[in-house]
């Protein structure tokens, strides 16, 4: 059986070769879905270490991006053996870069970290209109909506999106978090969001708090 503690540590260290070797060896043993779940959980614990190192300023955003990439590679390798069990999800999030803005790096970091943490993530992409957010929220009924943007105009688009959710009668069914360079407490109030962050790891913590 795979050494789960070692795997957690390897994920924390972002040691790609060790992780991939361990996962490939594990999958080759034709494991049960339950065992595969344990491996996913060990990886998620490794991601928690990554988050801690980020908070301690030992890792930076580049490391978070690399961590996200490693995690999605790992999950892809595990998918064939995971499919036999219903995967446990913590909740679902609809995310997108708001209308008029094409910057998606921050959104993508957050998305891959949220996915790694066990959320169902519906990523609407970039330059997403308020109506596209509304339609997706109607369709998948997420607990959380995450809006991202880098330009100062994103603040207005975020407000328009919240207004559109309000008009559709959906605002109270979701928590809303905004992220990106121009957001701050004032902007958050003005927009009518529930939380703001300029830090993907912190944003994820906020979301985890909401679905506990």
């Amino acid at each position: 059986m795979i050494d789960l503690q070692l795997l957690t540590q390897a994920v924390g260290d972002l040691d790609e070769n060790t992780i991939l070797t361990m996962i490939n060896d594990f999958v080759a043993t034709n494991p049960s879905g339950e065992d595969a779940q344990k491996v996913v959980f060990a990886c998620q614990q490794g991601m928690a270490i990554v988050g801690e190192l980020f908070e301690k300023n030992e890792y930076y955003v580049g490391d978070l991006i690399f961590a996200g990439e490693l995690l999605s590679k790992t999950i892809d390798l595990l998918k064939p053996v995971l499919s036999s069990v219903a995967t446990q999800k913590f909740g679902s999030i609809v995310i997108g870069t708001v209308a008029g803005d094409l910057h998606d790096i921050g959104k993508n970091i957050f998305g891959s970290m949220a996915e790694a943490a066990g959320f169902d993530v519906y990523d609407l992409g970039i330059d997403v209109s308020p109506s596209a957010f509304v339609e997706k929220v109607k369709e998948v009924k997420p607990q959380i909506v995450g809006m991202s943007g880098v330009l100062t105009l994103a603040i207005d688009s975020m407000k328009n999106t919240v207004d559109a959710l309000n008009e559709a009668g959906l605002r109270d069914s979701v928590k809303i978090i905004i992220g990106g360079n121009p957001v701050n407490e004032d902007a958050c109030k003005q927009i009518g969001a529930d939380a703001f962050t300029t830090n993907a790891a912190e944003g994820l913590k906020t979301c985890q708090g909401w679905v506990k």
Partner: protein
Amino acid sequence: MTDAAARTNERNQIFRDLFSGKTPKRVPISNPATQDFAIQHAGLDLAECQWDLTKLEPVYDKFCQDFYTDTYPGGSIRIPSHYQILGSTPIVMSSSGFMQHPDVVGMLAEEYDQFIASPYDCIVETILPRLYTGFNGEPGKVAMTLAKAMRAQSDDLAYLGAIRGKMNAKYGFATMIGALTEAPFDFMADFLRSFKGISGDVRRYPDKVAAACEAVLPLMIKKGTLPNPSMLGYTFIPLHMAPYLRDKDFATLYWPTFKKLVETLASMGQNVQLFVEQDWMRYLDYLYELPENTIMRFEYGDAKVIKEKLGKKHIISGLYPVTLLQTGTKQQCVDKAKELLDILAPGGRYWWQADKSIIHLEASGPVVENLKAVLDYVHENGTY
């Protein structure tokens, strides 16, 4: 001499003094709002004006009239025509009419060796065809597309240059020239490997990243070279990736070729202006090592610490938070300008600029009035 010409002379002298480490007669000011903002301020359609440049002359006239500035407020601008002709993917116009840069991959990880062997060959043969559809297809078509694009850009730049000349003649701005280049690591990241790609590369093949930065350094120096180093102006280098790197990756992969770039340009007699994006506070000791009078426009940081560490050797700028113009009262905005003047102006080596450009204007918002108040305040009270 006309009044405007006299103002140009006076302003040129202020910047000559500033760039050479002398204390100028007052703190010079550059309006942080851009052409995009100016078009919205004039109440015109953003996309249309960027295609039909004949609409821009009255736009700039109103812009220059309404907002105090010592330098022409039409900085580096991306005009859509040649990007459209070339089938651009890295620079596109969004639904809101702003030209933006989505994260793209122009070079694959397995192409590092090819790039290192000859960066410019790799750019022409491999990278541009991946990023710009106009570089693909029959050679004759590619040649014609390229010719059209170059002609379009040349016409557009000439037209914008003519407007600039008229505004300088009317408003007496400092006449500065500029060249644009990037730190080699940022060049590798921004259009070639992407944010995600480079983040993996620094862990998977750091040696190749370092070799690629060395290989591309001569191109970045050439790109940053002014037509004549004795002309008033500077090489503008926006800095991007360093805050996202671990200290050791910064020290080994980012800093060495970036330092060589700035040192080489300075040794040619050129001024260099860095746009120090994001949080560089942990790298201030590195920045101190750069040649004397390097201009550093900060997006973020503690003004006192920056002044104390760098202010006797380098020229400090930026730090004024443009988001305050959106959310603050006029008094709060002016108070912030005063606070920064009090910290950064004593002893000289300070140029008033904001922490970022203002591209978006919400018509009903307070930005116009707040920005005017701040620019006027600094103009009237900007003593060293």
